[in-house]
């Protein structure tokens, strides 16, 4: 890319000539940019005008700017949500599940990538990678079906084995039916599904680390773990920080199909998350203003986390993403 940079010679002459020469050279690139920019304007920025409906009366047949303001200076729906115990529960559950996902799920692909990186047999490594990617392509509906057949308290395969081993027909592990066990199942299944896929970006970053560094470390007497600690991990650090910041931005976002498919009526206390709340109260009940308000709240919290994480990273000497 460096040979494409504007050469010092081009700077000689008037500004206009400069611009012309620049456009002649790169104009087609800007032309290519028109479509994606149009996409973002039409489908990402223009719809933001409808955020207004979070502060307006609930009516899907009129544009929000034609509608009167909602009660309480437009904050009716926010007040309603925060007075609703169902919402507060959903908020708590979303935070809990996402934090656990972050704490347990975030390091998983890093560890996996490090392990894959240490494999020497090329073919074995390739096959392992492919197998690890596969769960990513299964939908949560399919995984929930598999999970039930494996984990159901009495006729699930694992519990059948467990009963045999314990020699007690009443022994069983309530993977799907007790709140804390269910949360564990939820997190572990999430790791199982996505950890392999998550390694891709780290493996790509690993290829960028110069082999000379490893050789130098080896010459200095570093063993395998020392090399991982002092060469590989520092090489991955920018990638890790970037992904961490982006994950923190999604701390209040919630998946829909995952909790919905894995949940059952015994664990709704912990499985009812914001997306399900929005689905039940918003889509099924046609309360579009309320669900817009909830969505706006989610986004604002997400942005706050994103910005805070970013500035923290910068203060610690990292590059950040903004």
């Amino acid at each position, binding site marked *: 890319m460096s040979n494409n940079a504007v050469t010092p010679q081009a700077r000689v002459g008037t500004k206009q000539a400069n611009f012309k020469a620049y456009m002649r050279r790169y104009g087609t690139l800007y032309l290519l940019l028109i479509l994606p920019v149009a996409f973002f304007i039409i489908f990402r920025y223009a719809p933001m005008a409808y955020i207004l409906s979070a502060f307006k009366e*609930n*009516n*899907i*047949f009129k544009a929000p700017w034609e509608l009167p303001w909602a009660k309480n200076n437009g904050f009716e729906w926010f007040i309603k949500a925060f007075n609703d*115990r*169902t919402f507060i529960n959903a908020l708590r559950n979303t935070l809990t599940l996402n934090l656990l996902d972050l704490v347990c799920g975030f390091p998983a692909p890093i560890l996996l990538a490090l392990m894959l990186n240490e494999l020497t047999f090329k073919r074995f490594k390739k096959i392992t990678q492919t197998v690890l990617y596969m769960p990513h392509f299964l939908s949560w*509906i399919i995984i*929930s*079906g598999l999970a*039930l057949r494996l984990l*159901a*308290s*009495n*006729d*699930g395969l694992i519990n059948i084995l467990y009963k045999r081993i314990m020699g007690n*027909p009443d022994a069983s592990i309530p993977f*799907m*039916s007790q709140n804390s066990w269910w949360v564990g199942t939820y997190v572990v299944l999430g790791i199982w599904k996505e950890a392999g896929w998550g390694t891709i970006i780290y493996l790509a970053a690993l290829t960028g680390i110069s082999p000379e560094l490893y050789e130098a470390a080896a010459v200095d007497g570093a063993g395998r773990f020392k090399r991982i600690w002092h060469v590989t991990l520092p090489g991955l650090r920018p990638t890790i920080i970037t992904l961490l910041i982006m994950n923190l931005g999604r701390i209040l976002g919630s998946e829909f199909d995952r909790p919905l*498919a894995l*949940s*059952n*009526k*015994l664990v*709704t*206390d912990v499985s*009812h998350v914001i997306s399900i709340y929005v689905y*039940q*109260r918003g*889509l*099924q*009940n*046609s309360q*579009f203003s309320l669900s817009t308000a909830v969505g706006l709240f989610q986004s604002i919290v997400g942005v706050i986390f994103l910005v805070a994480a970013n500035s923290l990273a910068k203060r610690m000497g990292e590059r950040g993403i903004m």
Partner: protein
Amino acid sequence: MKKLLTLVLALAMLVSVCAFSASAEELVDGKFAETKHITVEIYNRNNDGGTDPTNNVYTDYIKQGMLEQHNVEVEFVSIGRWTEVDDMNTALASGDAPDVCVTYSYPTIAKYAQMGGIVNLNDIGGKKLEEYKDILPNLWALLGDNNIYYDQDPESGNLWAVEAKLADNARINTFIRKDWLDKLELPLPTTEEEFYNCLVAFRDNAETLLGADAEKMVPYSTSYDIGWRNDLLFMAYVPDDVKDEELFIHSADDRHLLYPNYKEGVRVLNKWYNEGLVWKDFAEYASDSAHEDDMMKAGFVGAFQHNWDYPYRGGDDSIQANLQRNVGEDAAYIAVDTFVNDAGVHRKFLAQPIDRKVFFPATNDEPIASLLYLDFISDPETIAFLQLGKEGESYNAVEGGFEKLATTGDWLQNSLNNIDYTITVNGLYLGDATEVTTALGYAPVSSDLISIANAAAKADGRVAGYFNVGDIEAEQEYGTQLPTFRDTLLNKAVTAPVEEFDAVYDQGMQDYLDNGGQASIDERTQKLADVYGYTAE
């Protein structure tokens, strides 16, 4: 000169518009002078081997009939049966809903009516629905004032939907394995105690009944939908002398959760669960209903409650037919009328004779043509054709009724008796021929089993009185989340240890009430007092 020209032109336009609208709207012998076009919602069930729900021999009949009788072109638009509320919401919100819509969810209609998205049937062309009675003889004959005005607002007179007729209000039955009872030399149970003894006998004789599969024995099965799947057991605990008004106040939930003394019924199920009589994993299989059916088909389940004809539905693929294939010819689920209340009556609370709700979205430009569609679809002749098909192809006439034939290809009905097309009626509606036809309608399942089940489901039935107090706003607000609280409460209570039952149930009920249940009770109480002057003693 210029002015005059403008005036003349304007006049000419006005005259032509008037002439046009007069001729277009005028009905001569029920026919429009100019061909009208309407779209009609049809459920898509995506069934195996089914036909295109928008284009088959049945829709051809409807299209042809509407064109001949009323000069109206009909186009069908499919909506997913299993996602109907969501799909309907999307269609209404985006203005793409068909001209004639049907849904099971009245709150959806009420919600959109508030936003101005639904046609007021009492204000079509400035006229009340009654003024169209002359051109709607079949609709009126089928539904009657009760179903037509069921949802009319008592104050404003607004009418957003008419209620289809529920032709057969058989609801739920208790089924038990007849061959197991015979094997264990037990009579058909006639009380809760006898029924309980049967379940215990099933559990204790698992080896005899299932041999090597003894571990898989499920004496009694239920699903996470406890309220529906155990209704007859719970209703036996509701005092017989409870007033219609009290039932109305406590009927936010269609599973009767708020009926008096309901808890005691649930307590019985909790006891059974803890004694190992109930399928252990029922609550966990919330997203996989096929598993329970498979257990029944394999012959592991002794008894259960479900829709009155559930094990017989589906002909060759029914639970009953599968059971016979897997276990033996004499294996059978038979309906038993078992649970009696404090007055010694086999009480069943049956539904009002209402079913789906038919409405026109505000985007409907042809409300009169749409009303004529409802009339056409309510014509006994139309209903008979849609429910039966063609003699020799899909049915044969027998004494006192009709025997439906197993069909594939063109004459296959995507829904049982084509209820998806007969949107104003649910259930066979063939006059005197109904009873025999119903019993013969489940081949290869024996018609005796069907007759027994149909009679049992309605014996001692009570239809709680209806009070039209207008929309219950609390239920529009919380209606979609309350069933979740109900199911959570019931699932937890049933699976709790016996000694914790009270605490779990009371806590769950408190959550239910706090999250909209109490608001519904209060509003119903208030409105019943306002409109009917009722106050509890």
